[in-house]
């Protein structure tokens, strides 16, 4: 006779996949609409809630907190059970995290459209939402660390460290950066004035990218890449070194967002140097990942899920090289305030975050419901759409950003500005049109995946997976 505690809790994992994919479609569609508004500015039809300045935070928050965090909860809940050989700690709280988080993203998104917006990037939600986020985040931590504390396997697997760093560091960043004095029910003023607010905000902003979009997704990589390739991590020791180097050095890099701004120069220089150092742990992880698949290349021909994950590693390498380069002050003087930044963000968000999530979902969902993927062919089509969309996106923004940066700074022989801002802005239309096409291509791929996964799940239940016996060599005695 078996008690239910001998099965993994996977229902909540499937539900989180569904939410994550839904947010991907909604938030990417918002992105496509924004791209169109930059070409046809009257597309908001005089409706305040469709206005660029309100829709843009919905796009970024929907992607990061809707799509991204839901995907991270999905994979953290799935893999922490497998690597600990126990069911999720406090299943009720796991369900609470799942639904409460979606409610925050939904109501938060609507509040952004209504104009309740702190203006601090990726921390736009007003103070009641900040408190709700902190509460759900602590619950996420209790479920996650509780599962680890009750584990039956002695070592804590590397993927769990990255999820652990995600939970701990994002909590720290979120709380410090959100400190504010409420004035009304949905309006607050930051505890920090001007330049200090800027430094705190980019300490947060850069590390939200660092510990959520990089660290969290590295947790995904460290579990699903070896699992999928059928190979152990190439060098576990390298992953250990890279982890601590990553946690230590990422946090310093924020001030590269404020080069030549009105903050002390030593902070800018420190941020620049640490950003360049950050290349080492980033690429150590990439090399570790590439070497892990190096004996399983033949799978790349047949398996779209692994193709997505390996391609995501390539874009991870590209983005983590480009980032430190853009952090160098003499490069940043051109790239800052331009569309190059937008391109850089998307080489990370589309090429790395979205692709590794897609690869993981194509791998995970059939297993969760004990069936086959509805269509491998559609997944392959999706792969090429995602690659084409990402490449076109990055290249159009490189073109736009480098032109803006150089033309803004250009002066003639007698020191007069060569071009008016208006003319430079007007010359962006072809790049913006290419970007719109890129976004539509990428969104189409995502919709194909949503359909594919829907058909895979349709009519099936989460399969009950029994918790296996523990190898005595690694068990907790």
């Amino acid at each position, binding site marked *: 006779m078996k008690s239910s505690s001998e099965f993994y809790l996977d229902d909540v994992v499937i539900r989180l996949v569904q939410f994550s994919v839904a947010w991907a479609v909604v938030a990417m569609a918002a992105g496509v609409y924004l791209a169109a508004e930059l070409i046809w500015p009257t597309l908001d039809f005089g409706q305040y809630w469709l206005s660029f300045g309100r829709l843009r935070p919905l796009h970024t928050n929907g992607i990061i907190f809707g799509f991204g965090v839901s995907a991270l909860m999905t994979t953290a809940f799935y893999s922490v059970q497998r690597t600990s050989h126990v069911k999720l700690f406090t299943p009720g709280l796991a369900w609470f995290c799942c639904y409460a988080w979606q409610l925050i993203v939904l109501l938060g998104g609507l509040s952004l459209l209504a104009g309740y917006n702190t203006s601090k990037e990726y921390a736009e939600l007003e103070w009641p939402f900040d408190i709700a986020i902190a509460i759900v985040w602590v619950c996420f931590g209790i479920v996650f660390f509780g599962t680890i504390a009750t584990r039956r396997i002695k070592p804590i697997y590397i993927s769990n460290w990255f999820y652990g760093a995600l939970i701990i560091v994002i909590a720290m960043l979120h709380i410090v950066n959100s400190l504010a004095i409420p004035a009304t029910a949905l309006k607050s003023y930051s505890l920090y004035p*001007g*330049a200090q607010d800027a430094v705190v905000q980019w300490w947060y902003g850069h590390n939200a990218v660092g510990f959520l979009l990089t660290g969290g997704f590295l947790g995904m990589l460290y579990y699903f890449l070896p699992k999928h390739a059928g190979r152990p991590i190439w060098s576990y020791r390298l992953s250990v070194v890279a982890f601590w180097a990553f946690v230590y050095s990422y946090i310093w890099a924020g001030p590269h967002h404020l080069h030549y701004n009105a903050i002390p120069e030593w902070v800018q220089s420190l941020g620049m140097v640490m950003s360049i150092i950050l290349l080492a742990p980033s690429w150590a992880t990439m090399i570790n990942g590439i070497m892990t698949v190096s004996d399983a290349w033949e799978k790349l021909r047949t398996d779209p899920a692994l193709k997505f994950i390996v391609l995501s590693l390539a874009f991870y390498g590209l983005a983590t090289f480009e980032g430190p380069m853009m952090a160098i002050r003499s490069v940043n003087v051109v790239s800052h*305030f331009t569309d190059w930044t937008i391109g850089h963000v998307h080489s990370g968000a589309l090429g790395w975050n979205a692709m590794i999530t897609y690869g993981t979902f194509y791998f995970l969902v059939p297993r969760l419901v004990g069936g086959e993927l509805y269509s491998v062919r559609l997944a392959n089509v999706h792969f090429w759409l995602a690659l084409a969309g990402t490449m076109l996106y990055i290249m159009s923004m490189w073109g736009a950003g480098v032109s803006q940066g150089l033309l803004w700074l250009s002066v003639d022989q007698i020191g007069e500005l060569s071009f008016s801002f208006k003319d430079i802005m007007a010359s962006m239309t072809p790049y913006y049109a290419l970007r719109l096409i890129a976004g539509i291509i990428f969104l189409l791929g995502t919709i194909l995946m949503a359909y594919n996964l829907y058909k895979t799940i349709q009519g099936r239940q989460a399969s009950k997976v029994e918790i296996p016996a523990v190898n005595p060599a690694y068990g907790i005695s």
Partner: protein
Amino acid sequence: MNGLNLHKRIEENTGLLIFGILFVSAIGGLVQILPILDQDSLNTATENSHLYSPVELTGRDIYIREGCSVCHSQQVRPLIAEVERYGAYSRADEFIYDRPFLWGSKRTGPDLHRIGGKYTDDWHRVHLIDPRVVVAESIMPAYPWLAERPASAASDITAKMRALRTLGHPYSDEDIEAAPDELVDLTEIDALIAYLQVLGTAYVEEDAP
């Protein structure tokens, strides 16, 4: 104890792992962020600092609400081309009363830190209601609703000023009591224009460039 043994202990102990992550990730913030928060020149008012009037504050909050900072920076960098294009580069003491800061990260449109006084109120009014009337190439959204909504409706001005006073903005009781009257008969577009017109104007030109 050698490093591998220590690490074996960390990777088998949940509490140690949590503590390790918290400790290692906090170092950067402690060394880099705390000194900035402690630096008085970044939070002490000078003659370059401007305390926003109730109308300007209302306008600033509308600027935030509409997400203007998504496309407009308020930060002139100390570069020849930028100083020529926009005016004197931005100083930290000009932002003492900016909560939150609105430096931005993207210039889809031009920088606005030195926009104050460059155009007339009428130009701004026409431009905000339909940008393409005055700048044919503009891709800025139109904000027709600003001209229709009363400034006082979107503004709990006394509550806001009190909140800012707890943070050290020197509003007197009389300032706060008189504030609602200043907003009477104004629309949101009036308040926003008042804010735009004061942007970057408090700066006192020094002899050095």
